[in-house]
């Protein structure tokens, strides 16, 4: 099995979120970056497990600038065999998907695994777009993936239950929680990652289809007011005059 895993770099969940350039850009100052957890914990680790069981190769791909190399090295430290970075700063999902597709289309990957979303923009678009561009089946939000030869049995969590799907490789999948258990690299892995190939590929022609006009933070959480259970009158008064919802 030759597996391509798409990984992206996202701010650590504890990062302070702020914007610059008139609220059009994320302020990266002092922010720690990590591999998107859905890509790392689920897509990558499951890909490695499949490779370990059936042989083959796991390649990770990222569309981004050289700043992303540390996150790519981490994926190599966890166990990916090699890495590709498409050297550009993508502004939207379509660009990212197109770049990955242009790279992958003639490489004969048996499957392309993505995380179900990135934890920064939560777009959930790239995997589906890759599948569409490659004209391959797409299974989203998969929580289990088992391979039997070339055919895959996949489970998806759906409202109130589970859906079981069978599909033949090649296909594209987005991975959700449950697909695998996060792996912590070991020192041998970290040292091996030093010398694993990280190929930098110049981007193909593509234009961003959308533009971010503005970011806004969610409204600050209001204070909680406690009203005595006896005092329904005060509650009504506050709902009417302060919250103005009545």
């Amino acid at each position, binding site marked *: 099995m030759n597996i391509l895993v798409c990984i992206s770099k996202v701010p650590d969940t*504890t990062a302070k979120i702020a914007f610059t350039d008139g609220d059009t850009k994320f302020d990266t100052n*002092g922010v*720690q970056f990590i591999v998107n957890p859905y890509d790392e914990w689920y897509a990558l680790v499951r890909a490695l497990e499949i490779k370990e069981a059936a042989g083959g190769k796991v390649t990770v791909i990222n569309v981004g600038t050289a700043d992303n*190399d*540390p996150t790519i*090295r*981490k994926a190599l*430290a966890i166990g990916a065999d090699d890495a590709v970075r498409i050297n550009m700063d993508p502004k939207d999902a379509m660009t990212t998907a197109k770049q990955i597709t242009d790279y992958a289309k003639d490489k004969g990957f048996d499957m392309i695994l993505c995380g179900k979303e990135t934890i920064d923009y939560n777009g959930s678009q790239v995997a589906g777009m890759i599948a569409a561009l490659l004209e391959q089946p797409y299974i989203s939000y998969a929580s289990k993936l088992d391979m039997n030869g070339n055919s895959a049995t996949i489970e998806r969590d759906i409202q109130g239950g589970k859906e079981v799907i069978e599909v033949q490789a090649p296909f594209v999948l987005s991975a959700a929680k449950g697909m695998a258990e996060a792996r*912590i*690299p*070991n*020192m*041998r892995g*970290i*040292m091996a*990652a*030093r010398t694993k190939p990280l190929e930098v590929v110049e981007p193909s022609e593509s234009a961003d289809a959308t533009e971010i006009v503005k970011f806004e933070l969610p409204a600050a959480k209001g204070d909680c007011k406690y009203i005595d259970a006896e005092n329904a009158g005060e509650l009504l008064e506050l709902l009417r005059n302060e919250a103005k919802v009545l």
Partner: protein
Amino acid sequence: MKTDNFQSPDYYNIDDLLSDEHKLIRNTVRDWVKKEVTPIIEDYAQKAEYPQELNKGIAELGGFGPYIPEEYGGAGLDQISYGLIMQELERGDSGIRSAASVQSSLVMFPIYQYGNEEQRKKYLPKLASGEFVGSFGLTEPDHGSNPSGMITNFKDQGDHYLLNGAKMWITNAPICDVAVVWAKNEEGRIHGLVVERGMEGFTTPETHGKWSLRASRTGELVFDNVKVPKENLLEGKSGLGAPLSCLDSARYGIAWGAIGAAMDCYDSALRYSKERIQFEQPIASFQLVQKKLAEMITEITKAQLLALRLGQLKNEGKATSQQISMAKRNNVKMALDIAREARQIHGGMGITGEYSIMRHMMNLESVITYEGTHDIHLLITGLDVTGINAFK
């Protein structure tokens, strides 16, 4: 299960001075500590047991012999990586860091540095993989700060050495497979010998009832006419300088490790002070609490810079013993002070095992004593700057 919300303070963007690989190594050990150490360590400390099942994980992280070359099973990393590993392990518990320090700097280092090729091949890979636990015997019941007065001795019996004496306060003694033991020969010169468990006359009684470093086993090494094969002598160096060079390496790791304990206490105190409401406001809004927190982060930042610079000097082979003494002394005291202040910020909660603070605080009482006491390091600096020996 306990959740570990630790976030490391980096007030001066010191991360920018680390390589990507340093950060990957540090974050890897941090993740491992959150997953493997935090959930169990309080329980082990309460039971006064060492979680020996963690040794495999520590080994895989390169925590046993980080800077020992790969051909002997070490990780072949630089000194800053070694420091960062110690920092993260001690963020979990000083006992875990102590196990890694002893194995790496006090057992593997002397065998690598002063042992011959056969000794290196025989012991280092097993120590690196955690298959063997090592201990280091320098301190004796009557010779702590003054190890040169040791009475443990060995006599040349032709085809072997006969070892007699006793070592005390030895980390890992009760569980060690091998011990690097410092003893005097007939001329009174200090040499290192590798003593193996199972040699007749060698026993390792445990020291019970510690209030500090409870998740670490401590004991004695007792030698009653132990026949040590001649090939177990570390020939590369003799004299007090040999064990002291091991201590230099361990003390360097402690200077980093203490930062880990301090960061954990500070992080917990900062979070607690923002959540704990008294007089209708978070206690973080009181000036007296802010003073504590502001001083903590200032001292942590200074300690981080001290350790990093010392790491650069060590990487260049230029760090002096005296510079290492200063960092060990400063950073451990810094951590102990922060643990005490953080404990106050946690109020009554601070004395419980719900928080790591009291455990760190008690652990640091050992850390400030072993590997040269706080005052002994001060005398080392004093001697260095004045040229006058105030030890005796």
